[in-house]
């Protein structure tokens, strides 16, 4: 047998770049059973697996991969589902390279095991198999304790994790969602070509089958308050309302017609299905030359979406260099393959408009890199006197978010940290209010799906401990 470290990582089949830029179909096509087995066999089955330590929801990665190597998809699925309610989602959108795969011992000398791709394979292959009904079916869904109930506010990754964890331990959970569709960032933010909505729907169905009640069009802090929920007798409440309010840059012209937040642009296209206008009613602003400000995953999603919406030229405008871009490497590569241009070392100074209030260009300050700052990345420094005006008829601002004020204003007794996010006990996720927990972006500011899920898992474990005793929480 060849030494395992020498075997290359099994490549992911992709839709060709020139084709996919003209459609919203998924870009990465997924492993075949042969691909999956070959990749699973690369795993060394370490005695002390480091990969698991890198996973915010602590999936028994070694365990599930061993089953994939034996072609036991249902077995592998059962292992994953013990820890993760959204495996088909995480297999697609987690930054595995910084988490499980980043710790994989194979990565030290060669290429780490493609854990994310295997997780995706298991979730998809299981959903397509007959075993699906058996394992997700009503069998496990008995409400063991119909006297216990927990409410989650917001139906994004953090809340859904809490719901899955508690429901599988027999606790009734109601999830209140403000939008008309559950999923949070999974449905309004991440585009169809990276995470098909059918996948999210499937995971939600799995939760419903566990007995989770998902109620849409209820706004936490408006339709229902924390106090209302406590008055209704909920034993615990989890706040997972996301980060919300988009950040703008306070530079001239940011409210011109043609300047959008990434949240608005992506919500119109994804949640509103604006890519199918006019069969779906939500309109999307059309433009020829689009500049996306920022270089995180959201910026890449917005840029790639703009190309698919018919823009001729799409540029990422970023004040540092390509090496400092916060987006996943794979997302940057995909964007570039599709034709997105990277305009690095450019800091926006102003959006410039015509006499009708429509944007027609962006003026940027040329930058160079200075010493590393507290984030460890090189600080961008202005190059005096060097500016450039880039013609464009649409700008999408993807520079992060601020805490959404709705629930916080309605709950003044909730303790906040210096940045205005909800303050929690880092071990348990409990807020300043007893039995009221919080997690995800409303605690940390914009982060990843999986970090929100990790926070959900911590809070759910503590809730289970309090309601059911120590044995129930693992």
């Amino acid at each position, binding site marked *: 047998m060849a030494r395992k470290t020498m075997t290359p990582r099994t490549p992911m089949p992709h839709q060709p770049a020139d084709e996919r830029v003209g459609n919203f179909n998924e870009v990465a096509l997924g492993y075949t059973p042969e691909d999956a087995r070959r990749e699973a066999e690369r795993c060394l089955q370490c005695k002390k697996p480091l990969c698991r330590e890198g996973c915010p929801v602590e999936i028994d990665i070694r365990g599930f991969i061993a089953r994939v190597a034996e072609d036991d998809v249902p077995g592998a699925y059962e292992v994953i589902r013990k820890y993760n309610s959204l495996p088909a989602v995480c297999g697609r959108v987690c930054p595995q390279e910084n988490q499980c795969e980043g710790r994989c011992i194979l990565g030290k000398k060669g290429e780490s095991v493609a854990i994310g791709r295997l997780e995706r394979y298991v979730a998809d292959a299981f959903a397509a198999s007959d075993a699906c009904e058996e394992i997700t079916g009503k069998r496990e869904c008995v409400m063991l304790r119909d006297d216990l109930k927990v409410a989650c506010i917001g139906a994004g990754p953090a809340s859904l994790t809490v719901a899955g964890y508690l429901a599988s331990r027999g606790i009734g959970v109601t999830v209140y969602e403000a939008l*008309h569709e559950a999923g949070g960032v999974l449905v309004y933010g991440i585009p169809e070509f990276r995470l098909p909505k059918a996948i999210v729907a499937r995971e939600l169905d799995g939760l419903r089958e566990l007995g989770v009640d998902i109620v849409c*069009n209820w*706004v936490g802090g408006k339709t229902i308050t924390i106090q209302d929920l406590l008055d209704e007798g909920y034993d615990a409440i989890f706040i997972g309302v996301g980060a919300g309010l988009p950040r703008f840059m306070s530079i001239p012209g940011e*409210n011109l017609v043609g300047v959008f937040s990434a949240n608005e642009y992506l*919500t119109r296209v994804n949640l*509103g299905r604006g890519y199918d206008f006019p069969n779906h*009613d939500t309109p999307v602003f059309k433009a020829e030359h689009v500049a996306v400000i920022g270089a995180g995953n959201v910026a890449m999603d917005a840029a790639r979406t703009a190309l698919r919406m018919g823009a001729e030229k799409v540029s990422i405008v970023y004040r540092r260099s390509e090496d400092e871009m916060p987006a996943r490497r794979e997302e940057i590569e995909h964007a570039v393959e599709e034709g997105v241009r990277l305009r690095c070392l450019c800091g926006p100074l102003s959006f410039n408009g015509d006499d009708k209030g429509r944007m027609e260009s962006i003026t940027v300050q040329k930058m160079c890199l200075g010493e590393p700052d507290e984030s460890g990345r090189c600080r961008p420094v202005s190059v005096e006197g060097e500016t450039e005006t880039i013609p464009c008829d649409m700008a999408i601002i993807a520079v992060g978010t601020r805490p959404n004020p709705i629930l916080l204003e309605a709950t003044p007794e909730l303790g906040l940290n210096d940045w205005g996010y909800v303050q929690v006990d880092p071990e348990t996720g409990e807020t300043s209010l007893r039995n009221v927990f919080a997690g995800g972006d409303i605690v940390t500011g914009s982060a990843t799906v999986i970090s929100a899920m990790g926070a959900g898992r911590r809070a759910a474990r503590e809730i289970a401990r309090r309601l059911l005793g120590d044995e129930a929480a693992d």
Partner: protein
Amino acid sequence: MGYKILKKQELIPGQTTLLVIDAPQIAQKARPGNFIILRVHENGERVPLTVADRDPENGTITIVYLVVGKTTAELNTLNQGDEILDVCGPLGKATHIEKCGTVVCVGGGTGIAAMHHIAKGHAQAGNRVVAVIGARSRDLLLFRSELSEFCAEVRIATDDGSEGHKGFVTEVLQGLLEGEEDIAEVVAVGPVPMMEAVCRVTKPFEVKTTVSLNSIMVDGIGMCGACRCTVNGETRFACVDGPEFDGQQVDFAELKARLWQFKDQEKTSLEHFHHKGCKCHG
């Protein structure tokens, strides 16, 4: 499960309609100044509409809309007993209401419906409310009998002079401001040019002037920033910071430009509706 329409009344046939919707939770919580976001059917757009009234005992809210685009045209195809797919709310900050004396509430067109709820709130707080309502002609004046139930006075302006003052509501307002009466606040709800004109009239009198902005919205819960406007030189979100703002501080020119953002798509959408007919019932 949708939200049932308990009553449909065409206030101005083919143009302005009132719906009473079964939405107990929203009826409990709604206050003057709040709005809701609705979606008529599965493929529909999220559209904000002001809560014109509420009845917490019967669990209903009232909305009034002008048929302008595809969504309102589709909404208008629904009848009593039909259901609206999604109704979300109450959204936005409630009107700041305190006992302050005389409040003049100015309403134009469909804005009179929203103004009505605010005026009612002020009256219930013990203020003396003077309503000034305007329309092209007398048949298009909304809520006049309801307003007269709790307003000290209802002043009318019509473009054609068919009733009340011939001309604009701002001219009536000017007269009130020049009168001896001490006016604590002016509230204006209606088309942007009307709200802007009201602010121009009140400015020299230094009267607190509140306007309710009808910005474009998507989620209405502070997530997308579509509704942003410049107030006192700062970017604010109409959905979470508003929709009511100090009118003297609002950049109306920007608001007008932003309201036109999707005009081409709105036209396409309406044409699509007229060609294909309403799809909401499969």
